[in-house]
């Protein structure tokens, strides 16, 4: 990746805490436009907190978050989404009693104002996940886990994001379905040049998918490099791959 251009998202010295418990202890991350970046780490390492802090909840105690050269550290949560940073939160969190179409519409409400933009957004999502089109009038809560994940990603895509953040998209999914989800992310990146930050416990999949990766341990970045580099590192293999497989 070219180092000369300003990164799309730059995080420097980020600290965040829940009360007295410090979850992030000075994190530095850069994501360039058009990249897929994976953030891997064990439970409680601070992966989700990092993603939430970009969205201003919890607020950063120290450090800076810059999006496209602009400091967004203190911007209110709902305005961050309007800068076209979209998030698919952990555990999918679709709206169970609302229909698939309504769920998708919710993703567009904050950013897309014209009816035509919304319709175009729907077409894009349905092209990526034809299954959702079939289930358009069905309630979100009646979808299978994989379909719900597609819906969560589709909903995030409705705002035409410049940066898509996915929190554990493979959580609780069968391996085959998880692969479909990862394939869809790869397609989005290749065809539309979408920049993606993916948080995963499934390190093997995530690092194969990603251009670059960061390893987060106890609120600190301990390793970084390209996806294939990280996959070769013995400590990664021991901690997140082979060890994970045995346990």
């Amino acid at each position, binding site marked *: 990746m070219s180092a000369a251009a300003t990164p799309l998202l730059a995080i420097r010295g980020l600290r965040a805490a829940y009360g007295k418990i410090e979850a992030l202890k000075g994190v530095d991350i850069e994501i360039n436009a058009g990249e897929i970046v994976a953030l891997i780490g064990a439970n409680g390492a601070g992966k989700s907190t990092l993603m939430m802090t970009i969205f201003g909840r919890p607020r950063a105690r120290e450090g800076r978050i810059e999006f496209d050269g602009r400091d967004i550290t203190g911007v209110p949560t709902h305005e961050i989404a309007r800068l076209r940073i979209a998030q698919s*939160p952990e555990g999918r969190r679709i709206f169970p009693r609302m229909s698939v*179409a*309504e769920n998708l519409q919710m993703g567009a409400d904050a950013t897309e104002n014209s009816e035509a933009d919304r319709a175009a957004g729907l077409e894009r999502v349905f092209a990526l996940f034809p299954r959702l089109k079939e289930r358009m009038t069905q309630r979100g809560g009646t979808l299978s886990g994989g379909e719900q994940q597609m819906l969560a990603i589709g909903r995030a895509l409705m705002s035409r994001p410049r940066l898509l953040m996915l929190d554990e998209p493979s959580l609780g999914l069968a391996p085959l379905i998880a692969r479909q989800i990862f394939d869809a992310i790869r397609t989005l990146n290749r065809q539309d040049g979408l920049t993606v930050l993916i948080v995963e416990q499934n390190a093997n999949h995530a690092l194969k998918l990603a251009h670059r990766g960061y390893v987060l341990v106890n609120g600190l970045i301990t390793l970084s490099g390209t996806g294939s580099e990280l996959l070769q590192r013995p400590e990664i293999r021991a901690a997140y791959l082979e060890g994970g497989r045995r346990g």
Partner: protein
Amino acid sequence: MLDTKPAFILKKASLSALVALVLFSLMIGLRTEAGPEGKLIYWTRFGDLATIVAIVFGGSIVIELLRQWIGPVGAAALVPAWLQKLMDFVGRWLGPALLGFAILVPVIFYDQRYILDLAILVLTYVMLGWGLNVVVGLAGLLDLGYVAFYAVGAYSYALLATTFGLSFWICLPLAGILAAFWGVLLGFPVLRLRGDYLAIVTLAFGEIIRLVLINWQDFTGGPNGISGIPRPSFFGIPLTADEDGFAARFGLEFSPTHRVVFLFYVILAMALLTNWVTIRLRRLPIGRAWEALREDEVACRALGINITATKLTAFATGAMFGGFAGAFFATRQGFISPESFTFQESALVLAIVVLGGMGSQLGVALAAVAMIGGFELFRGLDQYRMLVFGFAMVLLMIWRPRGLVGHRAPTVFLKQSRAISSDLVKEGHG
């Protein structure tokens, strides 16, 4: 699977009988009364107690047998196709039919003052129910202090009309605006609260308003209330027996029923306005945001929805309709006092919303008719009225836990609109 052994059934029935024995031994087994010298005398009624316990025992055996006989089967087997078709038909036409009937009520029951008064009361609660439905049904914010906005509306009109002599039609929007303002005021401190905690704060808010009304003697008249509140006029023409009154102007014979009929149509129009606004709002982004907020607050944040604005508008909109209803209540009664605005009222309106099916406009209207109308219907039962009511509510919550109309109509249509029955949908997240 179910255990069909007689021993199991007997065990269950005995347990029910035991519970009945404990419950009723004091309620029915003992009877106390003030004796001739003012002393408390009591006697036992073990015969009645034994009968009740025996009924419970027998009844629970029958219920258990029935349950095993019917067993867990699909809805298709229980409800034949023609009945489902009929139910679909009724479901489609019930709303319009009810509306038509409501419009005709003053024509049909012109001579029956009691029914007209009751109809006005029912419509007031329909309106309150629809107003609270915005807050509780759509936005999912449990509000136990809704009566506060009803009170603000009523006192706004009463004070503005008696102090400044403003007419009802000028005060009505003012009452709504003031109530909405108090809605926002309540909204701010509870922005971070959810569920039980929110319910407690709103409950307290309702009580604070009532206590202020009682204790701020110089302003609100305290426990004596405000009397002599002016009646509404028919576009400036008073509904009185005077020369320039409504009857004289239109060449009719004066009748006090004119005013009642007029009031009926006023509250009907206000209720329909509430309904129309709510239906429109539901299809706008703000209405969708309310519903999404009810479903999942975290997801709303992730989608860039302004939670603060969403919650405050929900509180303000609901409060505004409560304020309108309050102003109408004041003008109809001609007299208001803090006694009309107790927690009981909040609970009643909330019960209407919950029984009707949260978020369903038709369900809320049906529940209001059933609760207020039914309450009057059972007047003959005296003291057992509350018992019948409690029983009916328990049964309803067992059989229709999502309320009378638990179905939620989608608001986004893409070419065809097809709904999935709520019975097929599991409650909860993910």
